[in-house]
């Protein structure tokens, strides 16, 4: 019971903070004065001038999408060049050489798509300068890109008879200057106060109490850690990610990092409510997300706290008491315990972050199925910065459409008719995930290079592969890390999944924004299906679960469910 207190505290704080932050984001994106405008207004204007941007210019959806794609592609090229040139660039005290081309490409794709899938071990691969100029920068820019697309979609749904959905450059710059940068700065200093490191020292060799030499990897961790969580990116400066004590030293930092992951995705729902001039619309979407979040948290915590029955047979004590947390401690840290680790896993997979404070590969079968399912459902349970909201809104359109079919009326949302074109685009956005995950998983399990990457045999091997493609396509970035992600087969296929999983939905979503923005809103009539009440929350949750269950149930039965049944029967692989 005690382990659920942390969940309740997290949920309560999100309920309190998200409307405030959402209101702030609303003001920022309307270009209104916020408390940081006097401090940072000049910076915003300076960036427009240096970037050659006319901030007043509105864009139609096609132009907006073009700018998103070109900007991200340019970012990808710059990222790749930094990785390849790090050997001759400064701030490289370990003299790390240029990254291998294929690995560099996979990594560049990974960070530009807000995935932060890491097929490399950072402390042995990336110089301090690369960490700063490549991952840290794209942590800001990919999050800001997602946020911009979400704002454009909301404009499409809420503007009356317009033709344009905003200016991508402005949406991007404002997201960085007023939202991501100042809050990350504060968050980073807070993290340092708890023990997260921030330095440029060479790796330090110490002499332990027993007289052995131990080399401590160092680096600018806090600055990266803050935006890594706040931008739902997830790529750590150390291989162990948020399990590493230098990234996540205390239970408090663990909690703050979870809060940071959920902050913007939860807030954006309220930004949406404000822009729709009906905050109840935002709360409806919020509660659909929260219900799914709490269900996942309960499942994961219960499974991990129950422990591994195979350990009990050996005579290991997994019972929680005042003197130990008990539960499944394989691949977990004592300071977080099974409950704190499972909640972090739930948060990172719901929020499309991908940071991990424990090794998901070593979770119990059902405990590990929770993050896998969260990701596979489309990263809409709060989801990534921007991506979670625009993903969820495509499900909202589907739910409205299904409700329309049931009552025999043309579906409408926020007073605008939802027609064939929008539903086609919404279906495209929703189908990208299952198609990528299932096709690539199927490919990997029938070919030699795919099978060669598996670390754990039996049903668990299928889970490892499926998790990898779900994580890549859903732009999450966490992993069942046993899988050999650095093999060329996985470098290529995960990069493909990350690119398609990011940009196909973005194009579809902006197309929806473009067609919705032109529609004339009609006042609600007696036959209008209300989308701001509990009935709609239930319908929305139902649609997400049914779509998810129908597409992934067979694969999940062969993976985690089968493994769970075999585990209770004592079968080993």
């Amino acid at each position, binding site marked *: 019971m005690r382990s659920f207190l942390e969940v309740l505290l997290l949920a309560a704080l999100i309920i309190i903070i998200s409307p405030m932050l959402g209101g702030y984001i609303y003001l920022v994106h309307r270009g209104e004065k916020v408390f940081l405008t006097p401090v940072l207004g000049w910076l915003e204007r300076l*960036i427009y001038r240096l970037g*050659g941007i006319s901030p007043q210019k509105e864009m139609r959806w096609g132009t907006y999408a*073009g*700018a998103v794609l070109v*900007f991200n592609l*340019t*970012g990808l090229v*710059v990222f790749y060049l930094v990785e390849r040139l790090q050997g001759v660039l400064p701030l490289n005290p370990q003299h790390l050489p240029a990254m291998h081309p294929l690995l560099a490409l996979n990594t560049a794709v990974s960070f530009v798509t807000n995935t932060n899938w890491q097929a490399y071990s950072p*402390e*042995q691969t990336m110089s301090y300068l690369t960490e700063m100029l490549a991952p840290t*920068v794209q942590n800001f*820019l990919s999050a800001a890109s997602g946020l911009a697309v979400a704002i454009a979609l909301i404009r499409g749904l809420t503007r009356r008879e317009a033709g344009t959905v905003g200016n991508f450059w402005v949406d991007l*710059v404002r997201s*960085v200057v007023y939202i991501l940068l100042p809050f*990350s700065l504060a968050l*980073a*200093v807070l993290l*340092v*106060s708890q*023990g997260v*490191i*921030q*330095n440029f*020292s060479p790796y330090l060799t*110490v002499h*332990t109490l*027993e007289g052995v030499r131990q*080399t401590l990897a160092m680096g*600018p961790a806090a600055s990266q850690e803050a935006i890594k969580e706040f931008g739902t990116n997830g790529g750590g400066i*150390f291989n*162990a990610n948020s*399990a590493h004590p*230098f990234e996540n030293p205390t*239970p408090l930092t663990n909690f703050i990092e979870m809060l940071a992951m959920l902050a913007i995705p939860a807030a954006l729902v309220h930004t949406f409510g404000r822009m729709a001039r009906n905050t109840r619309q935002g709360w409806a979407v919020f509660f659909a997300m929260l219900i799914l979040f709490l269900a996942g948290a309960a499942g994961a915590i219960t499974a991990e706290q129950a422990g591994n029955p*195979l350990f009990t047979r*050996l005579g*290991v*004590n997994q019972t929680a008491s005042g*003197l*130990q*947390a008990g*539960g*499944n*401690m*394989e*691949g*977990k*840290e*004592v300071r*977080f*315990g099974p409950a704190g680790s499972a909640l972090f896993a739930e948060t990172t997979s719901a929020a499309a972050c991908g940071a991990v404070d424990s*090794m998901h590969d*070593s979770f119990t079968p059902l405990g590990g199925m929770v993050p896998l399912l969260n990701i596979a459902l489309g990263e809409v349970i709060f989801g990534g910065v921007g991506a979670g909201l625009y993903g969820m809104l495509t499900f909202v359109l589907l739910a409205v459409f299904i409700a329309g079919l049931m009552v025999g009326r043309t579906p409408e949302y926020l007073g605008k008719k939802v027609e064939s074109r929008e539903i086609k685009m919404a279906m495209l956005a929703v189908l990208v995930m299952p198609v990528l995950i299932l096709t690539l998983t199927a490919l990997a399990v029938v070919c030699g290079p795919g099978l060669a990457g598996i670390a*754990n045999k*039996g*049903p*668990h091997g299928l889970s*490892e592969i499926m998790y990898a493609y779900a994580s890549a396509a859903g732009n999450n970035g966490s992993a069942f890390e046993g899988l050999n992600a650095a093999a060329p087969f996985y470098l290529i296929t995960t990069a493909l999944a990350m690119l398609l999983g990011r940009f196909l939905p973005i194009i579809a979503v902006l197309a929806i924004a473009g067609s919705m923005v032109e529609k004339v809103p009609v006042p609600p009539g007696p036959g209008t299906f209300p989308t701001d009440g509990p009935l709609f929350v239930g319908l929305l949750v139902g649609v997400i679960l049914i779509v998810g269950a129908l597409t992934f149930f067979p694969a999940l039965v062969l993976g985690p469910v089968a*493994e769970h049944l075999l585990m209770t029967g004592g079968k*080993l692989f």
Partner: protein
Amino acid sequence: MTRTIMQSLRLILVLTLLAGLLYPLAVTGLASAFFPARAAGSLVVQNGRVAGSRLIGQEFNSPRYFHGRPSAAGGGYDAAASGGANAGPTSNALLNSVRANLSRVEKQNPGVTPGTVPVDLVTVSASGLDPDISPAAALLQVPRVAAARGLPEDKVKALVMACIKGRQLGLLGEPRVNVLELNLALDRLPG
């Protein structure tokens, strides 16, 4: 198109300067102004030289010291190669490693009742650098450490109890004992 590419390039350069250089440098400046010891890695200095970081676990094998958890980082507690073992819950590799760790713990601590070894003492951590063990795992080692040092068990047990860190803010995380801090305190005991 060319215009969009140029705008993208110029923006990326400006934002790289801002988010990639100024931001980390600002954090570094603030961190070293307000929390210099933490920013540097919470290092422990003993007899004039750095003996480790109180956040990073170390390998302990001597019976005179409390032992930490098994580690999969490099050859064990390699703080330049962090990570877990990533063994799946039904893998033979996992069960064999737990079995081996269990018999090692039982051999090193004679008198341990079967079925009472805490799970954290026989499983590898996520980082391979876990600085902590559960209070149960520390108490289990008291008789061995006391015997090896010729100290009364009560005294060592009292030291362990004094080193237990409770939940943060009374709610977050789990009770734990930092192994390096405990062993440093042990070395300071007049004996």
